[in-house]
């Protein structure tokens, strides 16, 4: 059951909210990874973790919404390879929405730092402290984060490129639920 030509309002809200939070978290993560250990770096790392957990929770909501509300199909005249690339790109994004924060959460637990959301809600450690594992998870989290940044860059470039094409307004689909 296709939604017509435009995304639903919840999908639009989740898209832009997550876009802001993800770009924020990627930037913050990149910045703190180069900082020496200090009270401010400790604060920033905790903010980064809280952002990541928030993104993970929103990703779950968003996935549920998308599974129950199919996004608008691309028109028939859009070449098959472009439709295929769009689908692959979107599912890659969804996979990374979960993989990046999950790897970060596991890394934090393995390093011996349980995550306490906003300093008040303790989250379970589903990985036990383990120095060697922590280093591996740190690398994994980093590689996945860079991958997410790369896919986002392609996604944005493609959206802008197609947004300038006629006759379908790709950008308007994700800006308003009304054609």
């Amino acid at each position: 059951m296709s939604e017509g030509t435009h995304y639903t309002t919840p999908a639009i809200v989740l898209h832009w909210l997550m876009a802001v939070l993800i770009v924020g978290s990627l930037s913050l993560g990149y910045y703190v990874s180069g900082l020496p250990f200090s009270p401010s770096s400790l604060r920033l790392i905790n903010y980064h973790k809280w952002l990541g957990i928030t993104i993970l929770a929103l990703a779950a909501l968003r996935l549920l919404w998308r599974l129950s509300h199919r996004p608008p199909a691309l028109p028939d005249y859009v070449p098959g390879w472009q439709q295929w690339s769009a689908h692959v790109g979107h599912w890659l994004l969804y996979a990374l929405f979960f993989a990046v924060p999950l790897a970060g959460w596991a890394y934090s637990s393995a390093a011996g730092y349980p995550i306490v959301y906003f300093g008040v809600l303790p989250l379970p450690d589903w990985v036990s402290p383990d120095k060697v594992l922590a280093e591996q998870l740190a690398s994994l989290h980093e590689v996945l984060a860079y991958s997410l940044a790369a896919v986002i860059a392609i996604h944005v470039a493609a959206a802008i490129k197609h947004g300038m094409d006629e006759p379908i307004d790709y950008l308007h689909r994700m800006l308003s639920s009304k054609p």
Partner: protein
Amino acid sequence: MHLRSAIVSSCFAAAVVSAPLSVQAAQKIVPAQSEVAFVSKQMGVPMQGKFERFDGQIAVDPARPESGKVAFTVDLGSVAIGTPETLIELRKPEWFDTAKSPLATFQSTSIKSLGSGRVDVVGKLTIKGISKEIHVPMTLVQQGDTLKASGEFTIKRLDYRIGAGEWGDTGLVADEVVVRPRLTLQGAATP
């Protein structure tokens, strides 16, 4: 690094041996079955740590705890917590200042029985040259000639200027540190 830790270990051993003692070392600590653990919270996150090197002269008879004595020493440089960066930070003058004052010492002044195997060990804790009287409630369980002593007490790190300066914000690293000694002692206390 090996030479340095060898020197530190020797100094530690010498300090423990030469520490002024009014205690007959009647019971020996079994290091493999003992631990000095602690919990420090940073922004709500409980960080579990411990000190790997510690020693003590302990003579406590659970049947008559009031006549017992405890002298305990912890090598602050042997702290294990968090990441390697954390350990480097903890050695600095703002924290443990291990270069100048590597040892934390505890000397008991009295031991009070609280009934049912529980005692309150009162004494002086000295860290970074600052001494404070503390109470250490412990539970004693004698099993043959093995005595198991475990307890928990809370200190305020800023009382000893631990993490003062830019780390003084207790909203970031909490002032309260919960310390959990768990000792297995071999041998009987001489009356």
